[in-house]
């Protein structure tokens, strides 16, 4: 009976306290690449542990040892079957959410790209660049396997000098190259997979911030910190009618403060973070697999 309890506790810790603690810490911002991996490991381990807890519970309730046959008249077997059915339901729900987010994101992005292609003017500065005749300062990218776009509004161009524009474009190209959108998509799907009253967007918010830091680091390596920091301030600090959007605390301050500091070089912290991510994934896997391996070994010997 200890395995399901252990796994359930692990799942609870990985969905509640661990993300809350991690989100309040500053050190992940020093190693954004490793931190993204750690967040992914936490999410995956939480799902594995929760599913494993259900499977292990069902396994420990059902039947007596040496009597593996399902018996519909036994209340224990029925409870065990119900628990397995719930586990299957959670898996289906998760896959459904992943599919729905993937389809929804792609169709919205395709429509947006179609609009960009007929409304914005191509610019040869970088491949896929489109300039939009809008006063609102705006720069973003539309990721895609083929035909990705970087969109910049005239309002943004007016506020940036050459080096700042280069920094913005380097930042967006880093997003496109590394397909940061796929990371965000995973966390969006996970967010949608859980019922409204238990889901939290801590992981998604953190992933958003971390991929921005990754793209910032890339742009910084190319053009230095100053143009990028100035571009961030120029595009974020301008009074715009959409100010209401900033209701949620933005990561912009963090990003600029980070650019004002020394370039991150934290190979040890990053190694520890990777190790933690690996351990998190191995832990529930071993807990689930160990009894099964033991059962097989017992059966063979």
């Amino acid at each position, binding site marked *: 009976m200890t395995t399901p309890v252990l796994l359930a506790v692990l799942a609870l810790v990985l969905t509640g306290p661990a993300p809350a603690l991690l989100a309040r810490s500053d050190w992940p911002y020093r190693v954004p690449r490793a931190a993204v991996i750690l967040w992914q490991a936490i999410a995956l381990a939480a799902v594995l542990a929760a599913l494993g807890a259900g499977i292990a519970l069902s396994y420990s309730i059902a039947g007596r040892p040496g009597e593996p046959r399902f018996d519909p008249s036994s209340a224990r077997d029925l409870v065990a079957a119900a628990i397995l059915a719930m586990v299957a339901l959670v898996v289906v729900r998760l896959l459904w959410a992943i599919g729905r987010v993937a389809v929804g994101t792609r169709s919205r992005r395709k429509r947006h790209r179609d609009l960009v292609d007929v409304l914005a003017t191509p610019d040869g500065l970088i491949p896929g660049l489109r300039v939009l005749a*809008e006063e609102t300062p705006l720069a973003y990218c539309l990721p895609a396997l083929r035909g990705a776009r970087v969109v910049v509004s005239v309002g943004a161009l007016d506020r940036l000098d050459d080096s700042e524009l280069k920094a913005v474009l380097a930042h967006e190209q880093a997003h496109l190259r590394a397909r940061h959108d796929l990371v965000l998509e995973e966390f969006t799907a996970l967010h949608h997979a859980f019922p409204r009253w238990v889901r939290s967007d801590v992981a998604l918010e953190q992933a958003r911030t971390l991929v921005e830091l990754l793209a910032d680091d890339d742009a910084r390596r190319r053009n230095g910190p100053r143009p990028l920091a100035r571009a961030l301030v120029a595009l974020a*600090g301008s009074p715009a009618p959409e100010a209401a959007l900033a209701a949620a605390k933005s990561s912009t301050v963090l990003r600029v403060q980070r650019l004002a500091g020394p370039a991150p070089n934290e190979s040890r912290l990053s190694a520890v973070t990777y190790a933690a991510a690996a351990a998190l994934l191995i832990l529930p896997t071993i807990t689930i697999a160990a009894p099964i391996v033991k059962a097989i070994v017992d059966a063979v010997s």
Partner: protein
Amino acid sequence: MASEEKGPRPLGDLERLVMEQLWAAPAALTVREVHERLAGTRELAYTTVMTVLDRLAKKKLTERERDGKAWRYRAAAPREELAADLMRDALDRAGDRREALVRFVGQVSDEEAALLREALSKLDDQEQTG
């Protein structure tokens, strides 16, 4: 860069030019009329214009109606309306938080703007002293 387009896409650029003709026209245009309007600025095959109009119809950016043997095309919506749609989507005013696009930076509050200027001046100081 595998994820980005390679070189110019003549058809993609044509879509924009064709739409501009449709927006500028007072009424729905046939393929021949669009072709004539564009022929002044560049050399273009009639069938290319037909393909582009067909693609735009599939993307629901144009609507077409039968006129005798020919099709007449019009823009599905005025330019301003599509531009407003695009901006609404780009700024995520609907707030459905799908990661369709990744913005460089969002808007910040006055309080945060002050912090930003402070951080930036720190960076500028470093530049001068260092």
